[in-house]
Structures are given as structure tokens and as C-alpha cells.
């Protein structure tokens, strides 16, 4: 029995066209760029979190220092009539955003 030819006459196997190769390379590049962009974003967020963490610890230390040294700083507030006033101080840090701040109320020692 005679073998059938693998390719019929008149059919040409061209393989990938240049366009197909370019498209696949484009997708490969996009995938690689997406990986790097994701990593870059992760490091940016990490750096931001690190900066905020340092700012928060510094603020915390300022507040504790303030409580330990002098308590009668800031704006005087009298919540109950004829009582000793409380002193309101807002501690903020530009690294935490303009709207953020810790409000500390303290009494005279």
C-alpha cells in the first residue's frame, strides 16, 4: 500500500508570519513590564509605609516627651465651669498629610 504524502500538492506551510512573531513578542514584553511595574509599586508603597511609620513614631515620642516635661502648653480649654483648665495641643507631621494630627489634652501638674 502506497503511503499518502504528508502535504498535499498546492499547500504551503509558511510557519509564523512576522506579524504573529511581533505580536507574541509584544505580549511577552507587556508581561515582563507588568511584573516590573508591580514590583516597583510594591517598593513605592513600602517606602511610603516606612516614611509614615517613622513620622508616627516621632510624633508619639514628641507627645510622650511633652507629657513628661510640661503639661500646660497649648490652647486652654475649660470643660467644666470653675475647674482647672485642660490644655489642647495638636501634634502633626507633614509626612502624614495635612489633615492628620493627634490632639492631646493635658492638665496642669
Amino acid at each position: 500500500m502506497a503511503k499518502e504524502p504528508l502535504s498535499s500538492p498546492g499547500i504551503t506551510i509558511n510557519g509564523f508570519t512576522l506579524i504573529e512573531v511581533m505580536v507574541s513578542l509584544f505580549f511577552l514584553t507587556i508581561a515582563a513590564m507588568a511584573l516590573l511595574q508591580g514590583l516597583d509599586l510594591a517598593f513605592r508603597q513600602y517606602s511610603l509605609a516606612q516614611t509614615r511609620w517613622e513620622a508616627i513614631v516621632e510624633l508619639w515620642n514628641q507627645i510622650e516627651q511633652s507629657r513628661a516635661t510640661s503639661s500646660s502648653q497649648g490652647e486652654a480649654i475649660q470643660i467644666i465651669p470653675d475647674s482647672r483648665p485642660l490644655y489642647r495641643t495638636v501634634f502633626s507631621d507633614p509626612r502624614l498629610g495635612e489633615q492628620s494630627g493627634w490632639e492631646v489634652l493635658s492638665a496642669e501638674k
Partner: protein
Amino acid sequence: MLKNEGFSLLETMVVSTISIIVFAGFFSIFGQFQTWSSNLNLLLERDENLWLAPLLFPRWITPTGNNRWDSAWSGVTVQADSIELNSDIHGPGGFPDSQLSSSFETLVLRSSRFNLQVKSGTGSFQPVIKNIADFQVDSRDLPLISILLSTATDRPLLATQENLLQSTRFLFFLRNYRSNLFLENL
């Protein structure tokens, strides 16, 4: 009849060269991604340990020192690698009873084997924060305590010589600290 001649030697060489360049580039990028992902993971692990400190320390440290005038112990005892915190804050009727009977009235913090460990009451030391490279306490300005914590990564970062130690100093004001509360006239 179809005659399939295949690629010439020149075509094969060109295709091989281009393929090698393309795949080398891709795997190089992928390798970099793995390296820096691993580094980021190590840094985050180091920092998440340190980030526990502000959550735990204020609860443990700030109530310290609420002791009666005749207490046989000091509120804060600092040693080379440890700090002992005593506070008589619990007793009948909510008043000090001259006994450190409750577990939360006596705490010892120490650094041992790269862990920050805590002992409560008569219990044993338990690790709470790992990767601690340094733990220093300064109580010279009581009632303000300064604690320096340094943390390190589990292993060196890949492809960088960056200093891996992260040191943070925390201040804690002991609101209740009195060396002697007052001499009571009962």
C-alpha cells in the same frame, strides 16, 4: 510534488540568536523580579516585627510604677538586656494591696536569642517579637523611659549591600509612676 527544503544554516543561526536574546532578556527580568520580591519579603518581615512594638509596649509599660510608699520593690529595674516593670495596680476594691499577685502586675522584658521575650508574673519567658538585634533601655529620665529596638532580616538581602538593621527609639511616659505614692494614714 511539494519540496520542503527547511531552513538554511544562516536562517537557523539568526533565529537561534534572536531567540536566545529574547529569552535571556525575559528570564533576566524574571530573575530580577524574584530577587527583589524576595528582598521585599524579607524587609516586610523585619518591619512587621518592629511594628508590633507600639501596639504592645504601651499596654505593658505605661501602667508601671503605681506602687505604695512601703513597697519592697522598685517600679522599674533596668539591667543589661532586660527591664522589670512592677505596678501594684490591683487589689481588693480596686486599690493597691502591697502585693504583686496578679500576672499583669509584674512584667519582665528581655532580649534573648534574637527574640524579645516577655515574662508575666511567675510564668516563663515567651517570645513576642523576633529578629531583635539590639534592645536597650534608658530609665535615667524617669518617669520617661526610652527603649531602643533594632531589628534585622532573617538572612542577608540578595544583590545589595544595604545596611539591614532598622533601629527605632520609643519613648514611654509612665503616667502612674511614683517612687512612693504617699504615706497613708489609715
